[in-house]
């Protein structure tokens, strides 16, 4: 067994059938493309909805307004964070969005709704990192609450959490691999697809893993560059940087705030 596994000729043959034959490499590329589309769609939805949730919760905390809406937001975040994303995907794919034909869209929406719960925590920490004097200065100049939020608080908060948001995108690239469970053709689904034709899992799994690794590594490099640019143009003294996504974010944000 070991011998056949290491046999160079058969190995080359197995690689060929996993990657070259029938232009199977196109399947990987297509899977990767779909993975990136889903992750991108998800992160955009996640940021928009996440910031909206954060703004509502923050407003409730600061002004006592939006009580009901804030309550709804808290329930939403609790449910999303308290249930596995795979089940959320099943619920969306087979029930809520069952009529939607485009699986990639369903995936993007599902992961976006999921990501929003996590982004909202990051965004809230970002909003809370902004000095109270900023809101007061804005209001004292006759700007409305929403204008002050939009022009003064949000831009500064966003800037503080860009690294954390990018991290969320990286997490999403990997996490969307569960979309294969409902038949969405993303990169994580491709090895199974090819195995069903070649009856060989080894190279399909290896190739897909390497592709994830390379993409994530490249994105990490981009993140480093962004962080460097932000640090260089750090114009506001005493800026709080909020890093980490998912589980890490809350603890870290709290630490940097105290």
């Amino acid at each position, binding site marked *: 067994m070991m011998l056949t596994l290491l046999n160079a000729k058969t190995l080359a043959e197995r690689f060929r059938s996993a990657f070259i034959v029938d232009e199977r490499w196109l399947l990987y590329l297509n899977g990767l493309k779909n993975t990136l589309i889903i992750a991108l769609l998800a992160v955009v939805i996640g940021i928009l909805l996440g910031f909206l949730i954060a703004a509502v919760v923050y407003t409730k905390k600061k002004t006592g307004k939006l009580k009901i809406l804030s309550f709804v937001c808290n329930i939403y975040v609790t449910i999303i964070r308290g249930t596995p994303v795979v089940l959320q995907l099943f619920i969306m794919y087979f029930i809520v969005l069952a009529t939607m034909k485009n699986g990639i869209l369903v995936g993007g929406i599902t992961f976006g709704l999921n990501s929003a719960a996590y982004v909202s925590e990051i965004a809230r920490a970002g909003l809370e990192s902004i000095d109270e004097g900023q809101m007061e200065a804005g209001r004292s100049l006759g700007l409305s609450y929403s204008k002050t939020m939009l022009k003064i608080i949000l831009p500064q908060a966003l800037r503080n959490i860009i690294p954390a948001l990018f991290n969320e995108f990286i997490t999403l690239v990997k996490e969307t691999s569960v979309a294969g469970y409902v038949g969405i053709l993303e990169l994580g689904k491709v090895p199974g697809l090819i195995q069903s034709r070649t009856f060989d899992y080894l190279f399909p799994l290896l190739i897909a893993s390497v592709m994830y690794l390379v993409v994530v590594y490249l994105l990490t490099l981009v993140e480093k560059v962004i962080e460097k640019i932000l640090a260089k143009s750090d*114009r506001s003294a005493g800026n709080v940087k909020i890093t980490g996504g998912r589980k890490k974010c809350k603890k870290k944000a709290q630490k940097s705030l105290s």
Partner: protein
Amino acid sequence: MQEKSTKEPLIKTVGLKKSFGELCVLDGVSVDIFEGEKVVVIGPSGSGKSTFLRCLNRLETPTDGAIYFEGNELTPTTDLEEYRKKMGMVFQHFNLFPHLTVLKNITLAAVEARLHEKKKKKLKISKRQIKAEEKARAMKLLTRIGLQDKADAYPSTLSGGQKQRIAIVRALAVGPKVMLFDEPTSALDPEMVGEVLSLMKELADEGMTMIVVTHEMRFAREVATRVLFMDAGKIVADGPPESIFGAPKDERLKSFLAKVL
């Protein structure tokens, strides 16, 4: 001096109260402030000076009492945004917007205010024109304080004195009728206090109505037309600086002055 009483006060408070939970911070403040007056508010720490200013421009909602501005009482339906445009506020810690250039700091609110007006009154003027006009006005203000070359700089590159002078100019850009200052020099290094005080003095000389909370007693003596001494949420003494500093009658005022002078 005599004619004052026949004029309507610019700001009038009647029995103004503010509590934070159990803590009563303002305990019935009634005062008339007339156009052109330079009122300096002094008093021990925690006596409610900041809270008084913050109630005046409604950063804080009073628990009880009334505020009149130009004769009109502030009610729950008062447009607070419009109201605050008539009342500039300068903070101890400047509160400049760190993500915006000096110029943007100054023009932001003024541009928003005019865009709002344009929409409300359906004015013809273009957004671009408004921006250009406000930029020109801001540059004039900056030139006046000798910081025109800082227009494109970010606040973090400025000294404390420069920051506070820009904060003053930012408040002026909206066109207020009265300026509120809450310890504008307390966060400054001693060598920068002078430049901020002299800008405030200039404003005073131009006739701006000012309410200034400060521990700078020399400024109070030189610039104030009227001094309010607050203690435990009440105005305990109210008069021209000569009588407040020269012949204080109230015991609490005497002991306060003994400490700070």
